[in-house]
Structures are given as structure tokens and as C-alpha cells.
């Protein structure tokens, strides 16, 4: 019953040699490594899409004798599981990416922050790290290069989605409640233990290693001008073939659905609970940072799904996972959930629905971190596109 096989399509990661990446790195100057990543146009695969080279350049330029590279393996966004597959099958590539980042920014310590729900992956990852130490791919003088010292340790999360937010993650590592910090200062300059820290998603680090092994031009063969490269997608819901897929950024939602067997969908939630619900009429839109952005979660809803149930499920998620630090998020999420319950009972007036949407917009603007800023997204897009589904319901429908 324990999942052994993943239904994944062939991934490019399988064809890249992690050792080649590090060999290429030690043959280069730090500035050349940074330039290669910049030329690739790689953007963060964790959801926000921040250019990786900009982050690394800032961390490289920051002053401090000790710097950190953190791999964000907290993967808590509903509908996302590609980082689990990467860590299971391509952990060496992720470690190579972290080590390359360390070289580029001058870090000596790396931390993989692994979500508590993935504790069963820890022995495997410890093995990978031990093997790498044995092969001089971690530890002092990596690949014989003087002054290139770097090691990686694993720290566990403890069941809090908000700790995937990079400043909350750092708080958690420092032994605090996982409450997001005000920014600035940013982690690249005041991160873990107030040291310059580059926090990157699992997939971002794996692609960085691929880029250093095969070159920026190889990476740019796929994707769009603003969203270069391939991306992993976690596909679940009403499709014939759920699993992990690799597609170029810029793919239309319709094409993605054809590949996974979800053509008759009435909507697709792109980007998880904090993403957007796209109705079938907009399936020609593309998945890319410049159109519909995503960390890789695609949840597909078939013709008979009740979109209010979806909205309710997501809002319950946010009510539970809000850290409670700021009022718009803490109280707003509760109010929106109450509103959805009224809609399900058929007792919500149009006037009140408008007020709820206004509250949602306030949350988007006034919340302190991405959790509260994106909590209303799903409901707002469902209200916009599925008015027929949600208004004037009869109580029996509940």
C-alpha cells in the first residue's frame, strides 16, 4: 500500500549527470557560474518566479564570513508533489545545485528543510549526503579545490504550511514559531542566524545543476522568452493519468490537459490553493510567469464538481494554516469561509457576496505574507467564473 511507483513521464533530470555539473563549476570562476545561471533566465520553481541569478548575485555580494544555502523542501502547497519525486529520484542533482550555489555565493553551510510529512525520505537523503562526502563532493576541498568547503545537513519541519515561506522557514530553523518576517531585510542579506542566505526550491536547484552541466543555451531551447526552460507539474484530480509531468513553460492549459487525459474538465486550479481557478473558456491561456504562474500544482475539476466545495476546502486550509500574526489574513480567511458556508446553504445575498469579494481584495493588499495575500484567490476566481454554480442554491444541495 505504500507508494513505490510514481506514475511519472520521463524527466530530463534522468539524463543529466550531477557530477558533470560540479566538475564544470570548479573549473569556473564564481562570476562565470553566476553569469551562466543569469544567461539561462532560470526563475524560481517554488511559485514566486524570482530570477535565481538575481538572488545568487545579491547573496554573493552580501558581506559576511559565513553564508548559507537553504533548499526549501517544505512542499506544502495543495496538489504539489514533484519535489518529493525529485528528492526520491534525483537527490544528487539537488545536492549538486546546492553545492554550485554555495560556490557561487561563497557559502560553507547548506540546509535541506524537509517537511515533517516527508520524514520517510530522510534516511535516503542521509545516504545520498554520506555518499557524496565519501566522494569528495561535500566536505572540505570539494573535488580537490582549495577553499571550496561546503556541507549539507537536514532539518525537519513539523507540519506547518506557512514554514514554506522563506522567512518563516528561517524562523523555524532558528527555533521559533514559523511566523513570516517583515521584508526588507531579505534573506539574501539577513537570513539564517542573520547571515546572508540563498533560499531556493528543490526543483530550482536541480535545474541550476542541469544548466551548469549542459549550458544556458541548452536550457533556453524550451519555454518562452520570459519563462525559459522546462518545468515539472504535479497533476491530480479528475484526469485519466495523474502524476508528475515535465512540460515547457508557455504550454497552454488545454494542451497540458490533453497529455494527462483531462480534456472534459470544467476548470483547472493552477498553482494550488493559493493559485487561480481557470474555467474551461480560458484553457487557451498559457502556464508561464507572464500569464498563469504556478509552482507546478495542477488540480483538475471534471464537469460534475461543485466549485463551492472546492472553495470551502481551500478556505478551511487557509484558516488552519494562517499563522495568525496579522488581522487581514487571520480574520479575513474566517469571514470568507463563513461566507462560502452561507453560499452553500443558499443564504448569501448578492450584496454580501460583493462585500466578501471586497474583503478578499483587502486581504490581497494588506496581508503580511504570501499566504494571506493569496488566500482569497481561489474564491475570487470561482465567484468570477462560476456565478451560476454558486448563487441561489437550495439548502438540499448541501
Amino acid at each position, binding site marked *: *500500500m*505504500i*507508494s513505490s511507483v*510514481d*506514475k511519472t513521464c520521463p524527466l530530463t533530470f534522468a539524463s543529466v549527470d550531477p557530477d558533470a555539473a560540479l566538475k564544470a563549476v570548479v573549473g569556473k570562476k564564481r562570476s562565470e557560474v553566476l553569469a551562466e545561471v543569469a544567461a539561462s533566465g532560470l526563475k524560481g520553481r517554488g511559485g514566486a518566479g524570482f530570477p535565481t541569478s538575481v538572488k545568487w548575485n545579491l547573496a554573493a555580494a552580501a558581506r559576511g564570513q559565513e553564508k548559507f544555502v537553504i533548499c526549501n523542501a517544505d*512542499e*506544502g*502547497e*495543495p*496538489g*504539489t*508533489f514533484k*519535489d*518529493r519525486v525529485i528528492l526520491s529520484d534525483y537527490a544528487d542533482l539537488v545536492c549538486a545545485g546546492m553545492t554550485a550555489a554555495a560556490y557561487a555565493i561563497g557559502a560553507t553551510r547548506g540546509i535541506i528543510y524537509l*517537511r*515533517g*510529512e*516527508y*520524514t*520517510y525520505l530522510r534516511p535516503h537523503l542521509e545516504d545520498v549526503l554520506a555518499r557524496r562526502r565519501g566522494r569528495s563532493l561535500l566536505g572540505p576541498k570539494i573535488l580537490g579545490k582549495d577553499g571550496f568547503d561546503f556541507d549539507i545537513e537536514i*532539518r*525537519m519541519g*513539523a*507540519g*506547518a*504550511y506557512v514554514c514554506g515561506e522563506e522567512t518563516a522557514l528561517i524562523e*523555524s*530553523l*532558528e*527555533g*521559533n*514559531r*514559523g511566523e513570516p518576517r517583515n521584508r526588507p531585510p531579505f534573506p539574501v542579506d539577513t537570513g539564517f*542566524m542573520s547571515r546572508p542566505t540563498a533560499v531556493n526550491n528543490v526543483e530550482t536547484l536541480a535545474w541550476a545543476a542541469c544548466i551548469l552541466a549542459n549550458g544556458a543555451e541548452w536550457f533556453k531551447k524550451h519555454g518562452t522568452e520570459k519563462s525559459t526552460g522546462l518545468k515539472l507539474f*504535479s*497533476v*491530480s*484530480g*479528475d484526469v485519466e493519468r*495523474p*502524476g*508528475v509531468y515535465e512540460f515547457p513553460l508557455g504550454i497552454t492549459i488545454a494542451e497540458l490537459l490533453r497529455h494527462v487525459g483531462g480534456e472534459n474538465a470544467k476548470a483547472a*486550479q493552477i498553482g494550488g*490553493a493559493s493559485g487561480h481557478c481557470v474555467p474551461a473558456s480560458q484553457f487557451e491561456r498559457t502556464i508561464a510567469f507572464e500569464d498563469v504562474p504556478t509552482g507546478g500544482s495542477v*488540480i483538475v475539476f471534471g464537469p460534475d*464538481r461543485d466549485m463551492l*466545495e*472546492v472553495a470551502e*476546502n*481551500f478556505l*478551511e*486550509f487557509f484558516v*488552519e*494554516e494562517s*499563522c495568525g500574526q496579522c488581522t487581514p489574513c487571520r480574520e479575513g480567511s474566517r469571514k470568507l469561509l463563513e461566507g462560502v458556508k452561507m453560499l452553500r446553504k443558499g443564504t448569501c445575498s448578492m450584496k454580501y457576496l460583493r462585500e466578501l469579494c471586497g474583503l478578499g481584495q483587502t486581504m490581497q493588499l494588506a496581508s503580511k505574507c504570501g499566504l494571506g495575500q493569496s488566500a482569497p484567490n481561489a474564491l475570487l476566481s470561482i465567484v468570477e467564473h462560476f456565478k451560476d454554480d454558486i448563487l441561489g442554491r437550495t439548502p438540499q444541495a448541501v
Partner: protein
Amino acid sequence: MLVTESDKIREDIRKLTETYGRDRSALMPILQEVQKKYCRISDIAMQEIADLLSIHPVEVYGVVSFYSFLDDKPKGRFIIRLCRTISCTMQGKARVAKQLENDLGVLFGQTTADGLFTLEWANCLGMCDQGPALLVNDQVFTQVTPDKVHDIIEGCRRSFAQHVSQKREEH
């Protein structure tokens, strides 16, 4: 000499600080180890950790109460966490939930009288393509159907019985 439970906890925590150090950043790993061994973080444990890390016990409590995998109240040997998020919902988690309640005789949020099982909800476990998914402590089960619930629970009982008899042999 009689060693009390609280002496044992104190001794364990002292050993943990030898491994992880006494910096505040050692707090999470120490709490996670204590949770794993004792299925909870008691007042005595919090006090001892606070003393060794030179922080106030309220700070330790603040952290324990924040994380859903850390508990100050006693929990069962086996914590069963069923995913309640949308993909598992669409794959039939409600019926698995009902069967779990029926077979364990407790509701979500409760612990069985023998202290063996605690039943809880979890958010997305990262197994959405193979739902409904649940965790039993660190172990993940996927594509769980109501008829598999009984086997999962019996598996836990068997491994616990084995554990107990092993302990007896050691003594």
C-alpha cells in the same frame, strides 16, 4: 536506585543537547526527538529544555503549540493523519474517514482509550495523484479505501505487540 520517568526525560534531553548543542537553533530538533520518543512534550520536558537552552519555558511552549506535529498533551503510539485536502476529497477521503472512526471507535481529534491510536486530519501530504492518502506516524499509505482501513490498523497493533515482546526479552 530508582529512576523516575522525569529523571529519564531530563537525562535524555541532556544527551540531546550534547548532539545538537545549546543554541536556540537546536530547539526544533530536540523537540522533535522528544516528541518521537515520548509521543508528547510534557511540562517537565519543556522546563528542562528551557533551562538547558537558557530560554523561558513560555518560549518553548510557544513553539510547541505552533507546530501541528508537536504536542504537549499525550497522544497515541500511532498517530493516523488522513489528508483532508481537495484532491484526496475528490478521491473519496470522506468514506475512509468514516471507516477509521468506526474501526477505532473514536472521532477525529481523539485518542483511543488504550492510548494506542490518535486520529487526526492533515493537510495535503504530497500524494495527491494517489489519494486518498494517510500517514501513520512517518509511514505513508496511498490509495486507501474503506476496506483497507482494518488492515492498516491491525498492522499497527501487530508491530506494537512485537515491540512490546522484544522489550520484554531485553529485560
